[in-house]
């Protein structure tokens, strides 16, 4: 009995997500004791809404990174979707809210499709292709909007309400965030498609030789992250109400990729979980808000994020190395016993 309990506890401790969870608790305790205002409900809801936007996009980015790709253009895609949606709403004030959300997701999906086609059929490395589309889509936002921003009174109240109201006491923004994390968790751990995505990521040649369509899966994950970035655009509009062509979603890719990497997704593909990404997003949200609230100069935020990424990958790497060694040792021991 004790052995069983023991193994369960060590299993929990070995879980990577548990480490991030502990770190989040420590951060909460530190910020809370330094500055009691940190736990005030308006501050917590500010953290949650910025974390929500990160989570929606991060959920999609996890699958992209699992397939050994990377999408640097998510910030621009989010901006494009928000801008198109805002312009539709400005021209037709009576457009249904649901329709606006669908439009944003379709625009995001189209940007994702462009990325997916370039990476799969165009055979351009994802980092190059999306570095290009990062600039191209941002330029397109300017051309589409004619460099005119969408003002808060042009955004329908229904969209703004997504960030604050909801049927069951949790804002829609967070419901969308949880739904996208749960969707990615479900797809990656319960469906055949998820198995295929991980197979393509951990061994592309092997996956292709077993008859998986590399191109189809690549396009699928890019469209998926595009659609979620489009949804992120809706949530961004809900939260900030203003859509400025230069500002909307700028630099988001850095926060999203940091959250995914801190959440334990291997940048070389093949492993990563939705739960880890969700915790990574929460960690980054708490860190950037907490530093400001505690009164540390916001300039330290970039330092802290950089340091966190380094620490996360370094720990990951040493754990992985030890696991590999243990595995090899176990094989050797088996042989000697025989």
């Amino acid at each position, binding site marked *: 009995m004790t052995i069983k309990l023991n193994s369960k506890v060590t299993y929990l401790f070995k879980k990577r997500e548990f480490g991030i969870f502990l770190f989040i608790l420590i951060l909460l305790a530190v910020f809370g004791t330094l500055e009691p205002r940190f736990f005030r409900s308006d501050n917590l809801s500010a953290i949650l809404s910025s974390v929500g936007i990160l989570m929606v996009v991060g959920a999609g980015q996890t699958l992209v990174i699992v397939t050994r790709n990377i999408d640097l253009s998510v910030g621009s895609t989010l901006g494009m979707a928000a801008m198109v949606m805002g312009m539709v709403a400005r021209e037709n004030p009576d457009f249904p809210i649901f329709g606006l959300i669908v439009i944003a997701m379709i625009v995001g999906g189209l940007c994702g499709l462009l990325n997916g086609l370039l990476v799969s059929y165009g055979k351009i490395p994802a980092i190059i292709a999306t570095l290009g589309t990062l600039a191209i889509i941002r330029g397109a936002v300017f051309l589409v909007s004619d460099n005119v921003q969408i003002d808060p009174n042009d955004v329908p109240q229904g969209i703004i309400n997504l960030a604050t109201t909801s049927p069951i006491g949790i804002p829609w923004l967070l419901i969308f965030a949880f739904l996208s994390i749960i969707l990615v968790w479900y797809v990656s751990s319960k469906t055949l498609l998820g198995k295929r995505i991980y197979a393509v990521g951990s061994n592309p040649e092997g996956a292709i030789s077993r008859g998986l369509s590399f191109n189809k899966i690549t396009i699928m994950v890019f469209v998926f992250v595009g659609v979620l970035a489009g949804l992120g655009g809706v949530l961004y509009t809900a939260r900030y109400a203003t859509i400025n062509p230069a500002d909307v979603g700028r630099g988001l890719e850095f926060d999203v990729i940091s959250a995914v990497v801190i959440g334990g997704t291997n940048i070389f593909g093949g492993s990563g979980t939705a739960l880890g990404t969700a915790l990574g997003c929460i960690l980054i949200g708490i860190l950037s808000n907490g530093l400001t609230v505690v009164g540390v100069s916001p300039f330290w935020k970039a330092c802290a994020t950089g340091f966190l990424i380094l620490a996360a990958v370094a720990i990951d*790497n040493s754990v992985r190395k030890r696991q590999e060694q243990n595995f090899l040792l176990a094989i050797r021991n088996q042989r000697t016993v025989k």
Partner: protein
Amino acid sequence: MIYGSLGSEYFLDPSSIIFNTGRYIEIGLLALALTFVIINGDIDLSVASTLAASAGVLAKLFESGVPIFWCCVASIFTGLVLGLINGLIVIKLGLPSLVVTLATLALYRGLTQVILGDGVVANYPENFVGFDQRLVIGGNPGLPAPLALFIVAAIIFYYILHRSNYGLKNIMSGSNPSSSNFSGISVNRVRLLAFALSGTVAGICAVMITSRLGSTISNVGLGLELLAITAVVLGGTDIFGGRGAISGTVVALFAIMAVREALVIQDINGQVQDAAIGLLLILTVLVPQIRSYYVEKRNRRKRFNEAQSRT
């Protein structure tokens, strides 16, 4: 180029061409050094932040009364140290350079912000600022100092990459690290040197950019890494390593310069200029792919026809 010259009669004026180069020389130098890193199969996303941190050190030392010459030396030294830190983390911990330099991109930029705060450091001595306005060879159009420096640097880097022992090792360790290791090349030392080189060059660029702008703020050089990497990839260096040439990077830099200046003259928004560069980047990789696809298709059909006629 044609588009640009239609836009303004000044576009092809030699003095305008030569004087516009000043702004791109920092990108060019960074791209030259990055060529080595990328040929190794690594990447250094943190060059612009390294540049900023070096410029921050320069500004802070100058403010506290250190002579400007020693400030410059310290700036270049800072670049070297930061580059070495990148390299050591990548090599000693065995981490992917993409993630490490993404982290140091934030880390070094944050350090700069901590060093400089919101402030602006200006009032550099007269004989230090305006480096880009000085002529090495007088006359009209003349040869401005940054362009001269770039030409010299390009020639030196050309010799290092294509004529020296180190360059050969660099290309070999990029194309096949494990077999290079077995044939007695210390791949890790080659990679470390490339990172140190890119850091040092970022330090030199920090001095140049400070001299050109005459002031230092914490977001100096923000986003330069994208342009520098674009120049390297545009120049035909394989992002996965093992292949690349200095001449390609140089030509690509001038292509970027031509596109940007043509759009500037047409008074087109900066974001759209970036979009044009992005399009250029994708097309340069995509077009050869499409070509090879059609060539292969034609060859296949030819073989098919030959086989048909034989039977």
